[in-house]
Structures are given as structure tokens and as C-alpha cells.
């Protein structure tokens, strides 16, 4: 009897250990310095002459902290509504230009004087994702959700109310608590912009060729491009690929996320409801910087050359000249993962169909008039830049351009190894959960996800290791 018990215990222990060996683990955020955040080699070589100063100037301005009216360095125009006060406060991980950091700066805004009269929204936490919020639908005049009135615009989290540099302007925050209780709220995390200049410099015909090359897949993937409503060309930046260029991307973010009017978006931005329902911003919340509009302009009398640019152009140059994130080694449970494992994971990633959408190289760039590193360069973005139906599990009921509520741009995976928060709303930090969440009713990714499930645990681990090498 004693022997039988011992045998049973041994068997159970072996089963437990076998289970541990088979369990797949997300290696997690890789901490080593991979050199992410540097400029392209031709920029670092200052080729053409003078261009390096445009990168460094843009990089500095990207980190400037904006005030409403009394900044001694002239960084004025914040608000009256905003999500943050600096580009780099959101685009921070693992370097300036990235995505949200481990510590969310938005959590401190109500206590550090940035938004003294506001309440920290319930979904903003100290160690959670840096977020913007949107209400899919407007509210009726009785406060119920109006399903006939899609909203989808950004609901700024904070206001300048009570700041010493904001005069008498006092604004209410949107009704985040009610929206949360009614399920009428969705979130987005910042997209990293490393290598964005390469994506910008992909010709439409290259993207169309890549689409055709991936059409004949046996994994049920379709896909479409989002397109500019004015000229019909392919748009490519943002979670729904709704923006065409880095200039527009920067100009819109400066206006929407920080409330700073600029040459591309020349007015202060009310909330979607204040704008659509014809109330606008109150007059004592306009022109708070005292400079007139737009608050960000080019500076004709400034020197050196880079200082002549407006902030938006400087931001665009910084993003455009940022090199893509280098790949790097992976540490799993304290052990270095072998290069052969990473290589095997790469092959598996492609074999099971992930690369139909997360295309390792959708093409090479057109000739660039900026710098040689942007010319005829492979774009190893792991994205086809198309929007795909992602089903009910990921749908956010927000339409942008031609993309509907369930369509998202294939998120470029370069730099994934050092991202903390995953998927469009940062709902998870676990790569396995992020992969699982690709399946759902109406998702184009269901068969690929099923192929992932058809792999052995060892093979699945190889894919996870490979993804954290990016």
C-alpha cells in the first residue's frame, strides 16, 4: 500500500513537471538596450548636410512639456482640453518615440498641477496603459445612449480648469463614469513611431502588389486598404490606418491629444459633442495662450534653419528619421533563448499564416528626397498596412475613414519585444492573451489562430520567443 502511494505520488509529480515543461510562457518585455530610438544611419551621418539638426531639434521638441500660456520657453497652447502635455509622455517605451511606459504619467495630472480641478478617470491607473478614450455613441438629451448618433471622436481626459496659466476657463470632463457603466467607452494606446518614415515612403503600388501576393491564402484572410476621402490614396497611420502622412498624424495628435492648434488643424478642438451639437468651446477658454491662432506656427525669423519649422513639421521629421527598432536577443525565465529557437519561431510564424497580415516585409520604399536610408529600403514592419475585420472580441464600434467598427490596421510588430501593453486598447500585457484575442465571431484571423492551436506547445513557445525578439 505504501509503495502504491509512493508510485502515485511520483506519477503525479512527473505529470506536474511535464505540464510545467509544456506550458507556454510569454518571455515578456525584454529589458536589454537594443538601441531603439536612434536615427537612421544616413541621418546620423548628417547626409544630406544639415539634416541631423532637424532630427535632434524634432527629438527635443517631441519631449517639450507644453503649458497653457506662461511657458518661459514659449511652449504654450496646451488645452483647453488634453490627454497629455508632451508627445514623449505617451510615446516613451522603450525610448522616445515609442508607446506607453510602465508608469502612466496621466495618473499624476490631477495631483501635480497639470489638471488640478479634474478627477482622474476611473480607467487611468498608475501602472496601467497610457490611454485616450472615445465614446462610440453620443448621449441623448435625457442621458441615454443614442445608437442613431455614432460619435467615435476622442473624449479628452483632462482640462486646464484651475490652472494658474488658464485664466477663468473652467470646463467639465466628459461623463466617463456613466459611459463606463453603459459600456459606451473604448480606449486606444499610443502607436510607436519607430521606422514610421519607411511606412510613409511605401508607394501605393507596392502595397497593392503585396496585397495581391497574399490574396491566395488558405486561411480565410481578406483585407482592404483604408483610403483618403479626398484623393482616394492609401492611408496608413493610426490604429485604423486613417492618416496618410506623418505630417497629418503629428498635426492631428498635437491638436487632439494636447489641444494645440497648428497649421494643419488651426482651431482649438472642442469635445465631439460640443462641436457636433453646436455649442463649441466657451469664449473664455479660447486663445488662452494669448498668441492668436494657430498656436503653433513656423518661425520665419528664427535661426538656425531647423528652428524655422513649426512644431508639427519638427515632430514629423523626428518620426520620419527614426530608425526601425532593432531586433534583439530574448531572455525567458532568466535563460537566453537560442538563435535557432528564434529562427524556428520565425518559420512557424510564417508557416501557420500569421505573415499573411503581419507581413515581414510588405515591400521596399520608393526613392526618398529626404535621405538615403529612406530610399529603396526594405520595410520590415510585419504589417501589410491593410485593415482587417477582427470580429466582435476586438471591435470598438468606432469608424475612421473607410474602416468600420471591427476593422483595424495590421499592427506592425517591429519593436514588439519591448512593448508592455498589447492590442489597440492595451487590454493585456501577455502575448498569449493577445494572440488568443485575435479570434472571435467575424474575425479574419480565426483560422490562423486555429493553426496556432494546432501546433505543439514547444512550437507555440518558439513563436512567442520569436515575437519577443522583434
Amino acid at each position, binding site marked *: 500500500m505504501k509503495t502504491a502511494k509512493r508510485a502515485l505520488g511520483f506519477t503525479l509529480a512527473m505529470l506536474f513537471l511535464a505540464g510545467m515543461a509544456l506550458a507556454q510562457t510569454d518571455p515578456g518585455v525584454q529589458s536589454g538596450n537594443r538601441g531603439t530610438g536612434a536615427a537612421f544611419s544616413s541621418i546620423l551621418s548628417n547626409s544630406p548636410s544639415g539634416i541631423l539638426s532637424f532630427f535632434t531639434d524634432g527629438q527635443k521638441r517631441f519631449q517639450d512639456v507644453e503649458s497653457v500660456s506662461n511657458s518661459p520657453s514659449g511652449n504654450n497652447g496646451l488645452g483647453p482640453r488634453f490627454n497629455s502635455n508632451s508627445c514623449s509622455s505617451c510615446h516613451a517605451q522603450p525610448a522616445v518615440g515609442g508607446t506607453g511606459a510602465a508608469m502612466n504619467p496621466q495618473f499624476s495630472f490631477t495631483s501635480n498641477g497639470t489638471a488640478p480641478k479634474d478627477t482622474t478617470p476611473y480607467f487611468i491607473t498608475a501602472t496601467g496603459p497610457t490611454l485616450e478614450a472615445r465614446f*462610440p455613441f453620443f*448621449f*441623448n*438629451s435625457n*442621458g*441615454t*445612449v443614442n*445608437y442613431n448618433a455614432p460619435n467615435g471622436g476622442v473624449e479628452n481626459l483632462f482640462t486646464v480648469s484651475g490652472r494658474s496659466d488658464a485664466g477663468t476657463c473652467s470646463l*467639465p470632463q*466628459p*461623463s466617463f463614469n*456613466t459611459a463606463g457603466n*453603459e*459600456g459606451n467607452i473604448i480606449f486606444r494606446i499610443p502607436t510607436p513611431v519607430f521606422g514610421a518614415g519607411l511606412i510613409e515612403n511605401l508607394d501605393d503600388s507596392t502595397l497593392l502588389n503585396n*496585397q*495581391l*501576393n497574399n490574396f*491566395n491564402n*488558405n*486561411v*480565410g484572410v*481578406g483585407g*482592404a486598404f483604408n483610403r*483618403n*476621402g479626398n484623393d*482616394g490614396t492609401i492611408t496608413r497611420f493610426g490604429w485604423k490606418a486613417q492618416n496618410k502622412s506623418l505630417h497629418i498624424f503629428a498635426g492631428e495628435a498635437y491638436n487632439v491629444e494636447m489641444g494645440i492648434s497648428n497649421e494643419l488643424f488651426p482651431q482649438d478642438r472642442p*469635445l*465631439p*459633442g*460640443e462641436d*457636433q*451639437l453646436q*455649442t*463649441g468651446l*466657451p*469664449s473664455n477658454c479660447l486663445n488662452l495662450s494669448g498668441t492668436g491662432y494657430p498656436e503653433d506656427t513656423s518661425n520665419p525669423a528664427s535661426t538656425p534653419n531647423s528652428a524655422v519649422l513649426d512644431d508639427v513639421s519638427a515632430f514629423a521629421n523626428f518620426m520620419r528619421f527614426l530608425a526601425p527598432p532593432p531586433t534583439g536577443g530574448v531572455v525567458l525565465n532568466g535563460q537566453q533563448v537560442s538563435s535557432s529557437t528564434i529562427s524556428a519561431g520565425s*518559420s*512557424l510564424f510564417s508557416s501557420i499564416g500569421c505573415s499573411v497580415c503581419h507581413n515581414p516585409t510588405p515591400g521596399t520604399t520608393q526613392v526618398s528626397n529626404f535621405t538615403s536610408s529612406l530610399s529603396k529600403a526594405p520595410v520590415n514592419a510585419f504589417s501589410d498596412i491593410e485593415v*482587417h*475585420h477582427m*470580429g*466582435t*472580441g476586438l*471591435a470598438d464600434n468606432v*469608424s475612421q475613414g*473607410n474602416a*468600420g*467598427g*471591427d476593422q483595424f490596421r495590421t499592427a506592425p510588430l517591429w519593436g514588439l519585444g519591448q512593448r508592455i501593453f498589447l492590442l489597440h486598447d492595451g487590454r493585456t500585457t501577455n502575448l498569449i492573451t493577445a494572440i488568443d484575442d485575435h*479570434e472571435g*465571431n*467575424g*474575425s479574419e484571423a*480565426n*483560422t490562423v489562430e*486555429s*493553426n496556432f492551436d*494546432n*501546433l505543439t506547445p514547444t*512550437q507555440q513557445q518558439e513563436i512567442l520567443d520569436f515575437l519577443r525578439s522583434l
Partner: protein
Amino acid sequence: MHSRWLYCSLALVWWVVSPAHGQNVKAQTPSRNGGDFSDNVQPGNKVPTGVILVKGAWASASDSVTPLPEGGNVTNSVFTNQYFGMSYALPANWAEKYKGPPPSDSGRYVLTQITPAATFKGPARGTILITAQDLFFTPLPASNAVELAGYSKDHLQADYKVEMPPTPTRIADRSFTFFAYWSPAAQLHWYVLTTDIRCHAVEIVLTSRDTKLLESLTLDLNKMKLPAEASATGGTGGDGVPVCIKNYARDENLLTRVDPIFTEHRFNPVPVRIIIDTEGKIKHIHFLSAFPDQEKIVTDALKQWRFKPYRQGGQAVEVETGLRFGSGGYRMPLAAATAPTD
């Protein structure tokens, strides 16, 4: 006392008549309800989860009676699709876990995807994917299932090796093309069975690491019920359905044509499948992908179209064909698709 009353009255008058003041008060203290504001939580009014309420370009049809390619479903472990005349009893312990996406603007359909249920027992899992490619809208140089299978084999990506080149076979008493390949890295095998049914190439894709499972699933497909094989009078869809003719809406077949003019959404392809009745009128419109404003404009235009009735063996018969409006679709290959599927 008197002066205090006068002061208060003047202040009240100033408050009422001052437009700037009134505007500020209104703007700074907006209603707590409406737009971005609400303090009215209504438990029954929650935004439903698991539903896509805000859609982009989507599929729709002019009537709810005519069967649609995407209209199949799994009920009581049987997949049925009225448009394709298909019925397939799922293998034991297999189920449709999730519905597929809407049709693509290039005419690709995920009809169903079947995976092992939790009760499945076997050395390796697998996947059964049934898709259809509308041959009116494919960007590939293929006009039937055989050509599509050949294209697949010739354009197989470097990750895969051919196990069996496209080979004629019969499944459920119908002609199929069988094509097999595998991934040495993933040790996964793909068995692809393709056949022509009613203007489409229908593909059944079986995937697993376990080839015995794949063989068993292939044999099991013989239990499927499929429409009769193409005949001289029945086109590829079998008897009782319209004749499929690609590019039928040519000038020589059209008596009246009114072009739709898009005003709001303009830069997306709008593939439309129509059925023309024996008098030359359009009796059914199926939008594979369109925005609501485009649906209305196309419908209003197509109501006015008149075709010469199509005759086969001296009899007027219904025709099914495809039209493509809008712009911005797939880049078409240099070698265009050849013959119609008639």
C-alpha cells in the same frame, strides 16, 4: 433700501440682456445630459457586447428571400448553405466555434470554420475551413476551380512543399480538384479540395499535423450533399439556379443602363452580384461590400437597367452576373481572367 432694490433690478436686467454673459454661462455649465455628457445610467440601455453596431462597407441584399453565398449556418452539427446547395454533417466532436468575417470586396467568403470541440480525442487537432471565391471578382487569373488550384500550386510560398499537385478526384459524387502541401517547419499538412458551384470556386481546406486525421476527414466529406454536376442547360450551378456569366453586363446585352454616381463614399470597390430575370430586369441585388449610401445609389440605378433576355436552347433563362462599381480594389494581374463560367 430703495437704492439696493434698484441695484439688484439693474443687475438682473444686465444679466438677462447680456449675450456674452449668457453664452458663457451656457457654455461653461453645459447640460449634464446629451453629447459627451450623461448622468443617467439606464441598466437596460447598455451598449450590447459582442455586436458590431458601427459597420464599414458590409454585405447586404435587395431582398431577404433569395439565398446568399454567406447565408449558411451550422445547426444541430450540420452545416447547410442554401445558395450553394450544400449540406455537411460535421464529424463527431467537431463544432463551429466562431462565425467567419463578412465577404471581402474581392469576393472571398469564409462559409464556415470547424474545429475540434473540447471533447475531441486524438493525437493532434485540426481545422476544417470552407471558403468560396466569387469567380466574377477574383483578382487572380483563374476562371474555375481547376485553374485556381493550379495557381495555388504555382504560387506556393517558400514555407511550403507540394505533397500532391492538383489532381482530379470525386467527392460526394462530384468533381473536385485535390491539392496537398505541407510545412516542414510546422509539420502541418494542408489538404485542399476545390470544386465549381454556381459562379464560385468552393474550397474545403483541411489542416492538421495528423495525416490520418486528414484522410479520415477527407473520406468523411463523401457524406456531403452537393448540387448536381454542371450540365449543358444548367451552367455550373446545376438545375434550378440561374446561369452564371461573367461580364454579362456588356453593351451588346444591355438595353438601358444608368450609371450610379457616388457622392459620399467614393474610394472603395463595390462588387455587386445580380440576378437578371427572363424579361431582362434585375430581380435580385447582392452587395458583397458597400456603404449604405452606396447601396441606395446603386439600387436606384440598377432598377432602371434593362437587359436583352438571355436565351438558352430557345428558352429565356435567368442569368447571374457580377458588376463592380466604385474604385480602389485589388490590383488586377496582367493576365486577366479568361472565359466566363457558363
